[in-house]
């Protein structure tokens, strides 16, 4: 029996994430208790808002060590949006912050539009996920993207993005304005996803279903 837990650290709307899992037939629990997290078969680290706030809330709730311990257990962990960014080594959001350092890499701000650019920051809307350029591209088989079309549109809502240090950790990339960034990263049992699968229509629900079955 799977025991999937959404980590509640008081940032963001967990209800829609939970409902999205329910719509694909998966019951999930929501908890802020380190014991529940360590006992889970998989966890989801969601989150919206600022990096510094996110880290602060995790610290206040004593969740940093349990999250790192869970990550090293080999059980599936999915970070979504800010939850993905928190997995990284550092962030440049309003200062310099240390992240959970579960996957090597950094979080940077999307380049502001210059003269003649028509894009805006934050990115709010649908964008496609692409296999990595200039390399053979990692296979999506057996990952959360199993069965998802390449170039599928997902719903993004962010001003900051992730650059994974090791390109082998990049499962999908996305182009926005002047930036090309990691929209899905994966290292062993850890997956991070910049967009919101729970708001990305049927393609997004497929990702959640895949995760529940990992």
């Amino acid at each position: 029996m799977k025991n999937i837990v959404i980590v509640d650290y008081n940032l963001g709307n967990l209800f829609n994430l939970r409902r999205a899992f329910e719509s694909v037939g998966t019951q999930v629990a929501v908890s802020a208790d380190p014991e529940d997290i360590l006992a889970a078969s998989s966890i989801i680290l969601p989150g919206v808002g600022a990096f510094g706030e996110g880290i602060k809330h995790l610290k206040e709730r004593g969740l940093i060590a349990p999250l790192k311990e869970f990550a090293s257990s080999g059980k599936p962990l999915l970070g979504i949006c800010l939850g993905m960014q928190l997995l990284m080594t550092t962030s440049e959001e309003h200062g310099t912050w240390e992240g959970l350092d579960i996957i090597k890499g950094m979080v940077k701000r999307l380049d502001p539009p210059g003269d003649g650019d028509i894009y805006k920051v934050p990115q709010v809307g649908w964008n496609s996920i692409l296999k990595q350029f200039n390399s053979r591209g990692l296979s999506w088989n057996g990952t959360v993207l199993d069965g998802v079309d390449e170039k599928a549109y997902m719903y993004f809502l962010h001003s900051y993005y992730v650059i994974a240090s090791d390109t082998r950790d990049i499962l999908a990339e996305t182009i926005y304005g002047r930036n090309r960034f990691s929209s899905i990263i994966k290292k062993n049992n850890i997956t991070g996803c910049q967009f919101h699968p729970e708001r990305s229509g049927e393609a997004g629900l497929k990702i959640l279903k895949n995760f529940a079955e990992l």
Partner: protein
Amino acid sequence: MGHAVRVIARLDIKGPNLIKGVQFDGHRVLGTAEQFGELYYREGIDELIYQDAVASLYRRNSLLEIIKKTAMKVFVPLTVAGGIRTIEDIRQILRAGADKVAINTGAVENPALLSEAVKVFGSQCIVSSIEAFRISDGKYQVWVDYGREVTGLDAIEWAKQVEGLGVGEILLTSINSEGMGEGYDIELTNRISSIVSIPVIASGGAGTKSDLSKVIRNGGAQAAAAASIFHYNYATPVNKPFMSFSEARLRMGEHIDSGNVDFLNHGYGGERACTVKPASIREVKEDMVKNGIEVRI
């Protein structure tokens, strides 16, 4: 291959019903909001806006039940507007299942509500709704209370101000164009989208499928919201100017308990003529592709 422009359906809601008027007046009932919301999701809409049509007047948003039902079935972003005046109002709406709230009257009365809300919930879920009325000398006034009250604010300056307060997007509605089906106010959209660095959703005036492409290409909007062209497409049988109550699919729901139900009873005709040329979500998106605009199809 990059980011797609958003096609948004705007649902104006009174009680359980989806309603539609012209310039925020003369509303007719078209069916239930919940069923339209779900249908639009299945038809490929990129986002939904639920506007409580009477909330601002009664100083409360009454959509919580409809939001909850929608959130069970709809997995694209939902923005809720109408009657939002406190942080607690926002919290309730987000908890019910909305992703963002759009605030007009509450922000004009108390601009600090926007900055406070941004601090508590993040800019990504706070949208400034601006309802602008064009006056003779090419200026635009901000109106509040669902197009009922004039304020002394200049819409262009107000847009700049709300950006400074930290909101993540602007939902820009032209009151003059709203429900007229004569196209968006391109000038208004352009003036605001060119001075703010946050996304602008153009709203009000879509009468044909190509109006959405126009406001994206010429108005600089990042998203286009439309109501009538979608509502009348899905609520009306094609090639049939009249309809009757017995046709279940026209009703789009059960709860026709208030408001002007003439349209549902008698369809178009005479003064009830439809101001728009209805189109499906797919037809709108195909028109955008033809015009070189990337969309999610």
